């Protein structure tokens, strides 16, 4: 080795083992760790593109910021830390080990006299007798004492707290161990294989069985952490590992089957437990084991731990009744669907794809009411901790779907199966939103006295039907005018207005009416005009309901408040339909629920290493903090004693103890 490399090696050694470098590393690691908590990790890459824009997306990707904690530069920092700790141990080991054994009895009198903590005493006792007493004293204080004869007297060299040094070894070696354990469970092997072109991330959305071998990991893979979703009654023999913008398929050495998934609820409706009844089969199909897992209660089989991680719908079968919202009739059609599958709907307006995305058997909603904290005098003391959950209610099943038109545009819908009571009236609710981050906006369709949508749909059909408009307008005008005004110009005018209002409303709801008013009526008269139009609309709608009932051979609607509300709600609902974005409404009639359980499967050989390291770390830290390393020397000569004390760390305890020893020496020397 030439001198240049030797000196380079030496300065690297110096740097790595320097405390300032260690402090810098700890700080840098802390700061680097922040990044991954601020930027959400391992999201689908599309989300990042949307969030960052294409340019920064690429920069961030180059920097590995979507998986910071496995990025090369992060591993480099960690490697430096491990190197630094190792070099540090290497450097201190010989010294510390010697110190643990040594009493440092060679110390010279001059150097003792130069100690900051020293105390002298005169004595009438003989050196031997004082030494015996002092030795007994120090032993009593927990010191190991060595007595050495010196030419003119003797020296007591005492030490205590050698485990402090041991603590240093334990704690710092533990850091290395924990990092090694973590590395064993990391994805280094895969990264190497990926670099060598032996493995490749799969990014296509294809059936698992078609994923090629280059994107599959063998059952012998020593460490992995994957997940898989299994519907009730099905099984899986692979797990999926999310990597970067794709995934890998991990073949399992066994097959897991899900018999049943259960959710239990508290009386308030919050979930209480998630459990899966599993069966494990070996590769030949023989059942080896049955077990129930739950959150916090995994099953460990063949070195692979199986956890209850999540749940989802596993393909619930839905029977739906559909209405064509803009048709002039109230006719219905039937649709069957399965969650996670698609169906095509053919309509006059073109083809639609129905994508069923989810089904929920329960929905706990806060139905009205503010939280009232504390009711009486108790309020002063903070109110009762007993929560009243009277506003929380299970509003029953709901299902979600996307309706995609021929151009590929989709909106998402969420329909409740059961009616909901709002302001003392009952409605069917259907929510719609354009993007997943929005809240659903609800279309409320009123139920009639018999609790069905029929009246609403009938009235809706009648109002959409241009052929009925003359009759509606005529009946409205007759109802609105006294008999002597019939067949006059006023009646014609009224009929015309009613037809116009109905036609406008049927093309765009209230929005169309107000647009019309804004275009035609001077500003000062708009409010009045709006009121008039609304009145016309409501009364005409009531007539429309009469006609619709007659045509459908139903008894005429009662002229009461309930009908009034039905008409008003129908108008509101109809108006909302123009922004509902779908030409149909789907009502859930029946379902056959199939749940799926999300399992996480891990094999982590590094775990025991990490745990062992953690144990050492804990022990080491306690030894370093709570075993105080200190040394005492008492140099005794005839008539004179000198006490000196030192410690690696000076704390107030040390000063206190020194004072105590000094006082003890005085007492003994007397």
């Amino acid at each position: 080795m030439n001198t240049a490399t030797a000196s380079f090696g030496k300065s690297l050694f110096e740097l790595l083992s320097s405390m300032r470098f260690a402090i810098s590393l700890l700080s840098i690691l802390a700061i680097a760790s922040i990044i991954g908590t601020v930027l959400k990790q391992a999201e689908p890459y599309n989300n990042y593109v949307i969030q960052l824009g294409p340019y920064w997306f690429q920069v961030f990707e180059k920097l590995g910021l979507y998986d910071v904690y496995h990025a090369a530069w992060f591993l480099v920092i960690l490697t430096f830390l491990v190197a630094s700790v190792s070099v540090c141990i290497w450097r201190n080991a010989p010294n510390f080990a010697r110190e643990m054994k040594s009493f440092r009895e060679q110390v010279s009198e001059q150097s003792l006299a130069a100690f900051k903590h020293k105390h002298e005493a005169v004595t009438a006792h003989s050196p031997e007798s004082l030494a015996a007493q002092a030795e007994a004293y120090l032993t009593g204080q927990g010191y190991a004492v060595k007595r050495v004869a010196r030419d003119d007297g003797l020296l007591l060299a005492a030490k205590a707290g050698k485990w402090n040094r041991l603590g240093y070894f334990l704690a710092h070696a533990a850091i290395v161990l924990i990092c090694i354990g973590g590395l064993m469970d990391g994805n280094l092997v895969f990264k190497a294989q990926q670099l060598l072109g032996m493995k490749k991330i799969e990014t296509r959305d294809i059936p698992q069985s078609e994923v090629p071998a280059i994107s599959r990991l063998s059952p012998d893979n020593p460490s992995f952490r994957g997940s898989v979703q299994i519907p009730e009654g099905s099984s899986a023999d692979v797990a999926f590992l999310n990597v970067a913008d794709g995934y890998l398929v991990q073949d399992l050495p066994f097959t897991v089957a899900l018999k049943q998934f259960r959710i239990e609820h508290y009386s308030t409706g919050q979930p209480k437990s998630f459990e899966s009844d599993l069966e494990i089969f070996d590769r030949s199909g023989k059942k080896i084991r049955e077990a129930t897992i739950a959150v916090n209660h995994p099953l460990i089989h063949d070195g692979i731990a199986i956890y209850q991680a999540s749940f989802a719908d596993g393909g619930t079968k839905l029977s739906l009744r559909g209405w064509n919202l803009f048709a002039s009739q109230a006719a219905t059609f039937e649709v069957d669907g399965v969650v996670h599958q698609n169906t095509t709907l053919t309509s006059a307006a073109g083809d639609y794809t129905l994508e069923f995305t989810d089904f929920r058997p329960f929905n706990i909603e806060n139905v009205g009411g503010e939280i009232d904290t504390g009711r009486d005098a108790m309020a002063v003391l903070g109110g009762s901790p007993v929560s009243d959950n009277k506003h929380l209610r299970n509003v029953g099943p709901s299902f979600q779907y996307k309706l995609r038109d021929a151009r590929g545009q989709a909106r998402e819908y969420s329909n409740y199966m059961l009616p909901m009571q709002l302001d003392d009236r009952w409605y069917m609710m259907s929510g719609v939103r354009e993007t997943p981050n929005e809240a659903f906006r609800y279309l409320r369709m009123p139920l009639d006295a018999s609790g069905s949508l029929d009246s609403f749909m009938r009235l809706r059909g009648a109002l959409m039907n241009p052929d009925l408009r003359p009759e509606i307008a005529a009946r409205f005008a007759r109802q609105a005018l006294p008999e002597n005004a019939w067949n006059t110009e006023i009646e014609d005018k009224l009929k015309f207005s009613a037809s116009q209002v109905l036609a406008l409303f049927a093309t765009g709801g209230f929005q169309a009416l107000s647009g019309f008013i804004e275009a035609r009526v001077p500003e000062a008269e708009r409010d009045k005009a709006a009121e008039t139009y609304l009145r016309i609309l409501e009364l005409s709608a009531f007539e429309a309901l009469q006609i619709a009932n007659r045509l459908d051979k139903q008894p005429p609607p009662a002229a009461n408040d309930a009908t009034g509300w039905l008409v008003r709600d129908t108008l509101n609902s109809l108006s909302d339909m123009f922004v509902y974005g779908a030409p149909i409404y789907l009502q859930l009639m029946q379902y056959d629920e199939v749940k799926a359980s999300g399992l996480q499967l891990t094999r982590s050989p590094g775990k025991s290493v990490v745990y062992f390291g953690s144990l050492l770390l804990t022990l080491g830290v306690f030894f370093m903090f709570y075993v105080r390393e200190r040394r005492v020397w008492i140099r005794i000569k005839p008539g004179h004693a000198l006490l000196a004390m030192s410690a690696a760390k000076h704390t107030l305890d040390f000063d206190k103890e020194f004072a105590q020893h000094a006082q003890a020496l005085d007492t003994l020397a007397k």
Partner: protein
Amino acid sequence: MEIALNQPAPLFKRLTWFDWLFAAIVAGGLLFALSRYGEFMDIYEKAILLAAIPSLAAFGWFWKPFRVLFIAVGALSLVAIGQYDGDLGRMEQAFLLKYLISSQAAIMWMCALFLLATVTYWAGLLARSDFLNRTGTAMVWVAVTLGFVGLMVRWYESYLIGPDVGHIPVSNLYEVFVLFCLITSMMYLYYEARYQARQLGGFVLIIISAAVGFILWYTFDRGAHEIQPLVPALKSWWMKLHVPANFVGYGAFSIAAMLGVAYLLSARGILASRLPKPEVIDDIMYKAIAIGFAFFTIATILGAMWAAEAWGGYWSWDPKETWALIVWLNYAAWLHIRLVKGLRGPMLAWWAVVGLFVTTFAFIGVNMFLSGLHSYGEL
């Protein structure tokens, strides 16, 4: 001569009759709890309860005032349980419960006393009045007693709401804030007595008052004091160990930060003549960070073990986990800075103060701003 030499006597000779009585009460009380409520515990929880007997006894022997605290909390909690007699409705009828020792009343008294103690300590500091300082100390003791009674009774109340709802009150932000106040003030009381440093009370109590402010806001604005059943992820005996260990860490780091403030003020000559000597402040700061670091290490390890059981991996780089690591690294750096000559003094004090921001972010900032797997409290 032995007394003059301060020779330590063997442990068992140093114990007084009261020490033994205390140990007997601890053992009796916990064994009674085991026999009475054992059916609600799994094997691990029973083990934790049994291990608590020697731990609590040893802790009382180590820190004598704890014996009185323990007995007072136990007695008051039993009175409260007796008053309830299995009927939650008694909360609003029984005078004692309504105004003093139902969980909520006790916790509100705790809050009030902490605020009062803060004012008293500051008055004592400014007026150099030992009497006021002692009054502050007394208030903190009463506050701690009532706070623990509040938590114990809350534990009982949760089972009255429903046997399946009942759980140890360390499961949501509201409960852990109460725990934070209690642990922080207990640690402070220990240092205060050990270092004769009552003048520091005003500083430490500021951070406790801030927590009290949060509790009050959270109670009145959000109704967070309501007992809610546990989500499945939190139903684990690990919680009983992980959460308290964490809060020893948070509490200790907060104390250290406030002492850092005192140190820095005193270094600039502000209040210097009223505060303990800088070496003393520095020493307590080190002690606090040491115990905090040790417990935070344990808490993080326990958290990792729990995660391994609940989420399928001991380390997922979840934001809460990562921030725990950041806090831990921060104080590891602090401890090493202390070992470098020339970096001590104000630098360390500043670092401790900044550490409080890091700690606070890990404690509540993560819940407020970041999402992750930790589900015990969202703001």
